[in-house]
């Protein structure tokens, strides 16, 4: 299929439909409202359902119900809304209900701003609901990549029976880019949904979607079971892009929209003869810690974020004391400027060449 020019938020909706998602439950919040608006029009037209819930709490609990019936189901929100969805996300994780959740991040804390931000990194990668659970988190850098990842996310959710997050920001949500929805994707075997609550028809024992284990021994076993699943996801699903890192003395680390800005900085610095590269995590959980073993010439890591510095903690874990770790970021919905990033990188590398 040819590429179509689409606004990010609407393209995300089309990607979900392309992936076979027919059920959306959400609540409006800027800067992602074009997505529910688009789906409110498109889903009923193809026999799907769109429900504007009374709150984010209700929306994610609708997702929990729908996902438990084996449906491909989506919800989306932005930062304060995602905070409210944490209740349902931990229930989905605990009850192993597959679903996909988009977070188009805006500035915080609290009501914050509606500008693009990356300050939900902790909330998304560390959870925010109760208990020992993890959720895979994709961090696309373009509308096309977001659409590819959203489609993959539905498969991954079902392969592992887990909620999957896609971490976006207002910039990717609001920008227009050409997208091809038919790009080849990794073929995955989706296990039979024999656990789903679709009515026993009198032919099997009742299925129960549940995260309650009153006996601590059994709950512990359940947590070990979840833990083994997360180990497998860490092994199988981590994604990273390494850009000119082989000989780089300074390696930037950035994801999402910020990685796009940093790519231009790498370009400019290379032209001026600086040996720089970029590690771009495409999944931020599981985090590509191994990438830091593969940068032999690197002395300095330079983390750029649209936040006060949240991913920098993962970079330190990955580096494990082997590099000098520097950070530059701007919070609250401000985007670090290329010339500022370049200037600081040069300072780290010992001044102008």
């Amino acid at each position: 299929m040819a590429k179509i020019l689409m606004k990010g938020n609407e393209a995300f909706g089309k990607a979900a439909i392309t992936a076979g998602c027919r059920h959306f439950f959400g609540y409006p919040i800027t800067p992602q409202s074009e997505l529910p608006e688009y789906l409110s029009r498109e889903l009923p037209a193809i026999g799907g359902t769109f429900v504007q819930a009374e709150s984010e709490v209700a929306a994610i609990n609708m997702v929990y119900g729908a996902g438990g019936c084996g449906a491909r189901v989506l919800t989306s929100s932005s930062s304060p809304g995602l905070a409210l969805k944490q209740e349902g996300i931990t229930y989905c994780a605990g009850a192993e209900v597959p679903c996909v959740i988009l977070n188009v991040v805006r500035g915080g804390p609290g009501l914050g701003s509606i500008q693009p931000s990356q300050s939900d990194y902790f909330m998304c990668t560390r959870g925010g609901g109760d208990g020992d659970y993890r959720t895979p988190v994709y961090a696309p850098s373009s509308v096309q990549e977001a659409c590819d990842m959203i489609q993959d996310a539905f498969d991954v959710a079902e392969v592992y029976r887990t909620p999957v997050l896609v971490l976006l920001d207002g910039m990717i949500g609001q920008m227009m880019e050409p997208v091809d929805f038919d790009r080849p994707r990794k073929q995955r075997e989706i296990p039979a949904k024999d656990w789903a609550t679709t009515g026993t028809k009198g032919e099997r024992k009742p299925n129960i979607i549940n995260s309650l284990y009153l006996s601590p021994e059994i709950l512990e076993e359940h947590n070990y079971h979840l833990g083994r699943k997360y180990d497998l996801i860490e092994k199988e699903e981590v994604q990273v892009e390494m850009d000119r890192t082989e000989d780089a003395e300074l390696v930037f680390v950035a994801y999402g929209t910020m990685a796009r800005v940093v790519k231009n900085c790498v370009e400019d610095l290379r032209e001026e003869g600086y040996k720089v590269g970029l590690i771009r995590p495409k999944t931020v959980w599981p985090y590509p810690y191994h990438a830091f073993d593969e940068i032999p010439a690197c002395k300095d890591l330079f983390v750029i974020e649209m936040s006060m510095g949240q991913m920098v903690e993962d970079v330190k874990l990955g580096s494990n004391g082997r590099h000098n770790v520097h950070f530059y970021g701007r919070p609250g919905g401000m985007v670090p400027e290329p010339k500022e990033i370049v200037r600081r990188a040069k300072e780290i590398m010992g001044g102008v060449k």
Partner: protein
Amino acid sequence: MAVIFERTKGLTDAQTHYCPGCTHGIIHRLVAEVLEEMDQCGNAVGVAPVGCSVLAYNYFNCDMHEAAHGRAPACATGIKRVLPDHTVFTYQGDGDLASIGTAEIVHAANRGEKITVIFVNNTTYGMTGGQMAPTTLIGEKGTTCQGGRDPELHGYPIRIAEMISTLTGAVYVERVRVDTPAEVRKAKKCIRKAFEVQKAGLGFSMVEVLSTCPTNWGKTAPDALQWLRDNMVPYFPVQNFRDVDIEAAKEEK
């Protein structure tokens, strides 16, 4: 030997954990009998709440979800939208439905969500040890209102059936009690009607059931039933709040 009475197939053979004399058990049985009589056990998905009936998913002989505290109507909405031809019900206590879950119940009813809600009102938070509920009566003692509920401090007991019946999407709302055999039989009829309304696709249906908590009320089982009659019924009138003629409504549709 002829069998004259047997366990309903709507319940599993698990032993329930309810306290002696608690009417949760009776209400389970009524819902289960209705499911069986309507031949819906294989076609039903139930939603269990947080509260004493949290383990209801082990007792009903159909597919079940356990929902977060108060969120059963939202969870049931998700289920019903995916499985519109299934019978979907929630079973919720007053702490669950009338406190933490008020937004979810009001909006599910207002959307006319085609689900059936069994609302068990025992004027207390049974599971967590008898704290004040939104339905606790004036003067009734709870572990968080030890001098008795004082409206100056705690507001007034919420009448849920009355409130829900103001919503257009709620097509059938009735309050029943399960303190005598005759009332139990009436309650069953209402529960059946609520499921029939759902089956006919008419909208939201809810039965509020006045129930006992002998354990937290500190009463024997018979005294608890008497207390229900003397104190709950005057404040929570047992009556139909919103009715519908199923056959006529089906034709209109």
